[in-house]
């Protein structure tokens, strides 16, 4: 097991190098650079050239990448080219805000998905199942952007129940009631964005479990559908859910970019979007690095948990 983990971790570095270099190269393939996004027609050629020199943009791609990599390996994520702010500081301020929004939403979505998925899967073919299934279908097809605007229109404008901008009102930082009011709408949008896929997943897992022999045996013993669901099927369905949890790790950072932008929630989303649009490559690479690490680590955790939870699976059995 330990060897397996170490082997997997050893694959992390080359993957990260590849991901960051490809993204870096793509950013530089764009016909313009970050200096073009902050200059005005009033600035002379000398001024623009001086800026490029200061940001190191006049050097060959490989050199720029090498410099960036060198800094990162020493723990220095560098500065945003557009704002000159240390990236690590910005990330440290914004990631908690994103997690604060995404984590509860994902957990709620998961619970909702498990409940609905189990209900639908166990009552396959009935009206309840069809309703839940089509609800999930609609949920998957609905763009979260559009749903967010709908929520704002209904709850923010028509009903005036909740404020629509940001994470807290000006001057009310730390006020829990104020925070909750700002929290409800983006939370709702995210739950609706996350749960349909999970619900479908649980539903199909449930259906496949129900066709197993042990269910028939339990029914034979006189167990009610509820008991079968919670004591037996439920547990077996949890297995693939756990792998989903591992794969969902990167969502904590990049799962709410659009939603955060619409509500002005001060998380990673708007920061990353602005940087992408202005080709601010240190920011883009830093966030991507973080996301890639989480994806890889998440996969690893999922694989390990799967082995731990299911006694039937042993590492190396399939390889």
């Amino acid at each position, binding site marked *: 097991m330990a060897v397996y983990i170490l082997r997997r971790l050893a694959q992390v570095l080359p993957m990260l190098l590849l991901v960051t270099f490809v993204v870096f190269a793509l950013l530089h393939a764009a*016909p*313009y650079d970050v200096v073009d996004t*902050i200059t005005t027609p009033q*600035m002379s050629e000398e001024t623009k050239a001086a800026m490029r020199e200061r940001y190191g943009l006049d050097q060959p791609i490989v050199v720029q990448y090498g410099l960036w990599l060198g800094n990162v390996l020493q723990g220095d994520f560098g500065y945003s080219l557009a704002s*000159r702010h240390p990236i690590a500081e910005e990330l440290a301020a914004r990631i908690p805000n994103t997690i604060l929004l995404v984590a509860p939403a994902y957990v709620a979505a998961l619970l909702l998905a498990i409940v609905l998925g189990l209900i639908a899967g166990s009552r396959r073919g009935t009206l309840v199942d069809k309703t839940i299934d089509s609800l999930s279908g609609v949920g998957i097809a609905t763009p979260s952007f559009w749903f967010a605007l709908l929520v704002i229109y209904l709850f*923010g404008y028509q009903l005036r129940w909740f404020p629509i*901008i940001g994470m807290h009102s000006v001057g009310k930082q730390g006020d829990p009631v104020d925070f909750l009011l700002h929290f409800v709408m983006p939370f709702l949008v995210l739950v609706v964005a996350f749960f349909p896929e999970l619900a479908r997943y649980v539903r199909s897992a449930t259906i496949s479990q129900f066709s197993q022999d042990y269910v028939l045996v339990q029914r034979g013993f006189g167990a009610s559908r509820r008991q079968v669901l*919670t004591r037996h099927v439920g547990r077996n369905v949890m297995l693939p859910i756990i792998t989903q949890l591992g794969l969902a790790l990167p969502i904590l950072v990049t799962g709410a970019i659009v939603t955060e932008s619409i509500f002005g929630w*001060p998380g990673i989303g708007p920061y990353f*979007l602005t940087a992408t649009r202005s080709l601010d490559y240190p920011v883009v690479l830093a966030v991507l690095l973080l996301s890639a690490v989480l994806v890889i680590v998440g996969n690893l955790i999922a694989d390990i948990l799967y082995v731990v939870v299911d006694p039937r699976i042993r590492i190396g059995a399939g390889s």
Partner: protein
Amino acid sequence: MHSEEDSKQMKTKRRVIAPIALALAATIGLAACAQGDAEPETTGGEATGQLTYAIASDPSSLNPINVADRWGLTVTNIVYSPLARVEGDGTVVNELAESIEPAEDGLSVTVTLKDGLKWSDGEPLTADDVVFTYTNKAVRENGNADLLYVGDQPITAEATDERTVVFHLPSVSAAALSNIATETYIIPEHVYGDVTDFSVPELDPLAVGSGPYTLTEYERGQYLTFEANENYYGEAPKIPELTLRIVSNADTVKTALQTGEADASFATPDQIGELEGAGLNVYPYAEGRVAYLGLNAAKITDPKVRQAIFFALDRDEINTGAFLSDDYYENAYTILPPSNTFATEDVEKYEQDTDASAALLEEAGASDLSFTLAYAGADPAQTTEATLIQQQLKDAGITVELAGIEPAAVFEEIQKGADSQYDAFLGGYIMGQDPDAYSLLYRTGASANYFSYSNPATDALFDQGAVELDPDARKAIYADLQAQIAEDAVVFPLADNLKILAVNPRIGGVEDAKLVPIYTFENFGLLTEQ
């Protein structure tokens, strides 16, 4: 067998889930109730002493030495003061200055400061601060020195006593007065005297100025808060607290205006109907902008072909399509916006004339003409303009291929001149009051000459206009200049599209606060609550 335990487990699950759900619902419900009347309404209500202005993005710089972006300049104008302002009609309004006297020979300007000026921290504002500011601004590496240069030499400043500053110009320049006053906000030497590098976007402390407000808090990506500056030399702000809320999504801003969460923000013509319906006041005003169709003269080299293209266009149709109503734009016929005092209509306007267009094409021997037009794909106004241009030219037998891309990409690519993949592009600029500033776009080899345009006659006129001190003579020179550039047909000016500010009716004093280009309000402190 298992039934009792099972049902207990079941009950436990229900026992756990149900109360949690109930508690959550209760909290939300209670909070919403408690929130109830704290929500600002769009009409009526008592004065809160607070104004919220929604802006689209973070300021790129809060350092007055190099600030050049709209929101950075807006904030700078709230917290700092310039020596003077040049209004839209050319008049000079004194701010920190008591008097400004250009010398007879045009080689120096003497500025006397008002008496008793103080910084927000109580220290006196003196000529040394002015010299400090201008000296640092003139340093090229700091990133915004170009306006303070006449040719290759910088304008220098010298304090002759506590309240007097003399600016020395390296050579005669008619634009110098405007350039000295424009966009230069004075910073305190006693606070920033030890700063070694002024090229940074933020100073430490963030902002100590002499403007109507002081900056109290800046949460990146969220908001900036201001409160009235008690040491302000002018009228004390009527609304003591100001918040600039950063909201990037246009739909969110619109809803915020409707619910009253934001008191003011810019709006687009298509939103006017809804906003007015919600009771908001709408103020369209000219920013002195010129939206235009530009041609790459290095690729479309024959002036007859360029003129033919222009004659095939219908300016009014394009403008009405892009800006919805002539309430929201003014037709532009020259390189200068129509509101500019030097603008003239005595030029070739290229009123639509398909016969002239066809005749010119034939003369030039160009048949089946086709070219590519690049524009900002995400901008709805430009998209409409591009589509209409394509259609109008098609009717004249010219094929246009459209390329909707990132705005920065348009300019980067078009500047490649003959090697560019684009033959034409859409753009817009705000260059200010003084026509000499427009030389950055139209002079041979100038830094913003996207058109690859070169005409020695035009360059000569720019040179003449830059040093002519007699106002009437100057006006005549620039009239000739506009006519010349119009004849060369590298730029088809479309309109000065008006900027539209939507304001909650509880806020008044908009005329006093004065809507101006770039800064939104000349003085936020003159807005009132009613």
